[in-house]
């Protein structure tokens, strides 16, 4: 008996597909087929977004993925209280040594660790991104992919291991109204750095010269880096759901995935003035409670989360350097715990 046979014969069995469940699923489909009549909610929302005010939603546009709640109907119930415990953030496994002057990393990842480290200069015009994965990444192919103008493709060596170095250009949009979209040139280096550790260096601007990309690759050392946005505490039984670009961090209650919290660094232009907070937030159900975080005035508001009857605390506070951050945490936190949690949020830009 091999493992596949074992999986089929001794793996977990499915519960029966009851006539009632089958009928309900079929009815839901027929309802959908029937047309675009006002859609009824057949189940408690599976994907819902915290419905904060327009300005806050705009600020959150770049990180919507992090606050989407994949709500299962599985076992468990929302916590009505939490115990804060020491918490260590996942890390990115590699570090360029030395780090090129003027570049600071921003990480993306999930509970298992960061998989992307983007090193860009202040303008965003020069830098490189490191990707780490267990699986061999899909390259752009020998002849390039649609939208990619392949310039050169060569085989090189990184620390004695075979590597593919590709130079190409492609349409690139910065999102900046002033610069808009244009063609940007990249150099991409991919190799299996260790067993089940594939690394890609994708460089642009001043860093895209092949010799510079190779130098970056060979400078990588096994030195884990903490995320830019860090927390020192977390509710017991919660874990990291995702973190993105050093601006968003979300945690999830492992026993009830509808219950999440997020830490967010809004862009400066998206920071809501404290005196406008109640107007900008959607669903405030209490007044602005003045508190102190990191020695600075902060604002705490209880809001209706807009789904599953949950309420959240919305906190807007600042780090000691004046950078604003916000928290959205369930009302299972006490006011004191929100502040205690916020005091342990750190930012290492």
């Amino acid at each position, binding site marked *: 008996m091999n493992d596949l046979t074992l999986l089929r014969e001794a793996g977990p069995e499915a*519960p029966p597909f009851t006539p009632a469940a089958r009928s309900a699923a079929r009815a839901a489909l027929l309802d959908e087929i029937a047309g675009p009549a006002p859609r009824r909610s057949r189940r408690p929302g599976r994907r819902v977004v915290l419905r904060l005010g327009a300005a806050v939603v705009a600020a959150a546009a770049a990180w919507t993925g992090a606050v989407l709640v994949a709500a299962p109907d599985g076992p468990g119930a929302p916590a009505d209280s939490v115990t804060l415990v020491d918490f260590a953030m996942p890390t990115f496994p590699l570090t360029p040594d030395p780090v090129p002057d003027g570049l600071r990393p921003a990480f993306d990842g999930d509970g298992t660790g960061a998989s992307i480290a983007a090193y860009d200069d202040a303008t965003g015009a020069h830098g490189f991104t490191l990707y780490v994965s267990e699986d*061999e990444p899909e390259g752009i192919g020998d002849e390039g992919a649609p939208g990619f103008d392949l310039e050169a493709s060569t085989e090189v060596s990184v620390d004695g291991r075979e590597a593919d170095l590709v130079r190409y250009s492609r349409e690139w949009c910065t999102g900046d109204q002033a610069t808009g979209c244009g063609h940007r040139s990249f150099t991409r280096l991919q190799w299996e750095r260790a067993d089940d550790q594939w690394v890609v260096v994708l460089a642009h601007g001043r860093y895209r010269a092949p010799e510079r990309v190779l130098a970056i690759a060979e400078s990588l050392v096994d030195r884990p880096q903490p995320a830019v946005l860090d927390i020192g505490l977390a509710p017991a039984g919660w874990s990291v759901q995702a973190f993105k670009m050093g601006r968003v961090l979300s945690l999830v209650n492992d026993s009830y995935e509808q219950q999440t919290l997020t830490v967010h660094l809004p862009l400066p232009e998206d920071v809501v003035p404290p005196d406008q907070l109640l107007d900008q937030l959607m669903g405030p159900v209490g007044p602005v409670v003045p508190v102190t975080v990191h020695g600075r005035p902060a604002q705490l508001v209880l809001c209706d989360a807009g789904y599953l009857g949950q309420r959240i605390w919305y906190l807007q506070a600042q780090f000691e350097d004046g950078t604003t951050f916000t928290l959205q945490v369930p009302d299972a936190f006490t006011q004191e715990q929100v502040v205690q949690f916020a005091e342990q949020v750190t930012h290492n830009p």
Partner: protein
Amino acid sequence: MRALPGAAPTDAELMARSLADPEAFAPLFDRHAATVHRYLGRRVGELADDLVSETFLVAFRRRAAYRPDHVEVRPWLLGIATNLVHGHVRTEQRRYRALAREAARPVGQAADPGDSADRLDAEALRGPLAAALAKLKAHDRDALLLLAWGQLGYEEIAAVLDVPVGTVRSRLHRARRQTRAALGGVLPTDASEEDDR
């Protein structure tokens, strides 16, 4: 493939027909709901009742994007189901761990460790197997369970997960290696993975 005159329309024909006549989609539920539910049920237990419904709703909404030359309808549906499981990874892991704990309770005579692998009672491996599934990375588990429970081939898995076949191979290799390791080497390791395609 085109159906013979008088024969029931094929899945692909129903899909194509449903673009103009949405009701033509309904028979696909009747044909495949049980298969999709069983696949989901083995992964997420009772939550399958909801996810099978979600699977067909998503499939109906995305039917215009279905490409019959790319993958058949049954694998396509299992791919959608797999993506829906991603929103419930913790539920899935909890289920496996609970099954592992349950299986660990002594309920009679244990298997003789001196038995050959082929004669080992599969019942005795239920717990370790569930525990092993809980520990796999989600993407690796997807590939393994689409192969084992969904009966998909490598190409089909690649198509529904939208990854290269090489990635499927590496995920399966890793998943099967880790599963065998977790089972303590009681399985033959010389079985060709290619034979299971």
